[in-house]
């Protein structure tokens, strides 16, 4: 597998950084190389935040994402900011509730009700990031579902395992139902 650059953009508290970490973790347990990085303002909380992960079978030298193979934007701000760095023909996933102004360009766009699914179907908006992971993996087929689920379960707080399992699955279903 060649290098895949994934960027998850949102606002602080949406868990995009954690999602990137889980994805990296799962990738590493699947025998790949992975580097997760993040960016936030000087406040270390609130404001725009993004989690990024690079996954590859080869050595990862440049650790950050420049142009994304997969972009997820959970806010309009993130979408507007990062869309120009989506590669030609790459995957772009936006939250359909938050991103009203859909980006146009040469990429595969998925507008899905990620946050709504988390809040309404799962009942916790906090798990939007896990729903996101389900979505991303279902679209890209980066990892075996099992491995990903294992990754999620080992990184989420104790007692929330079932919730997160459901959330991951809900993400997968979002994509499946779309088809």
């Amino acid at each position: 597998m060649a290098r895949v650059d994934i960027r998850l953009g949102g606002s602080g508290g949406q868990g995009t950084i954690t999602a990137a970490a889980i994805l990296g973790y799962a990738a590493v347990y699947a025998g790949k190389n992975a580097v997760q990085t993040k960016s936030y303002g000087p406040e270390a909380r609130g404001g725009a935040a993004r989690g990024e992960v690079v996954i590859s079978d080869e050595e990862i030298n440049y650790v950050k994402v420049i142009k994304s193979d997969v972009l997820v934007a959970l806010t309009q701000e993130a979408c507007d900011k990062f869309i120009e760095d989506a590669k030609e023909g790459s995957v772009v996933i936006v939250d359909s509730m938050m991103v009203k102004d859909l980006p146009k360009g040469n990429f595969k766009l998925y507008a899905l009700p990620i946050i709504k699914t988390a809040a309404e179907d799962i009942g916790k908006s906090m798990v939007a990031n896990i729903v996101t992971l389900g979505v991303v993996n279902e679209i890209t087929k980066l990892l075996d579902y099992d491995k990903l689920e294992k990754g999620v379960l080992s990184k989420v707080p104790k007692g929330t395992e079932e919730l997160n399992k459901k959330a991951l699955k809900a993400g997968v279903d979002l994509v499946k139902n779309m088809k």
Partner: protein
Amino acid sequence: MAYDYAKYLRPGKLPHIWCAGCTYGIVLKSMIRAIDSLNYDKNDVVVTSGIGCCSRLPGYVDFNTLHTTHGRSIAFATGVKVANPKLKVIALGGDGDMTAIGGNHFIHACRRNIDITVFVFNNNIYGMTGAQYSPTTPKGAWATTAPYGMTENNFDITSLAIGAGASFVARTTAYHATHCEKMIKEALEHKGLSVVEIINACPTGFGRKNKFKTPTSMLLWMKDSAVNVEKAKNMSPEELAGKFTIGVLHKEEKPEYLETYDATVGLKK
């Protein structure tokens, strides 16, 4: 009539950087009302701070403002004041800023009794850096650097100030917004070093992990725990357990530093 804060707020800076439910904003408003009531010329007011969430406050107010290094708010303020005693100097900071790394400047300013007004915003945590314990994190409370619960004894910031020699010491809370306004005003009017400890809520760093589910619950905790110092005089230790006093805790007449200095050295102005 709705109070108009705009006169004292720098245009275009809101929304501020503080988290949802962070009570710095409430106190900022009390502070503005207090200063407004004193009719200072904005050009004569200097506000300094150190580093921390609290210390971003000066950026929002339309005075001469100085966001210094971590802990050094008072030390910079001292230079400003000594160089130009006509300026009204307010030095503020968080519990970490003022009593951890900045503790030395705090006690020395109290000792000198220099005419600076000090506000210590005590939210019992290092908010900015993500919830490490501070000298006021309650015993047993969780913090990222106290994963098993806080193990250190606390400062009582007001006792520290009194022990160091401050001539005006008060405590108030973000919940008691009008009381807070009053304390700030009295502190500003006092000649000499005045300290106001302002109990504040950090829902993000402290509240969530310490069983305060919402910002409001933290405000209500302040409401329930604060006892006016006058009332406290008639209460038994049992009744006061788990409570803290608010109001002017100490006030004395004491020579102000710059007046003494100028008189002693025969300053030729």
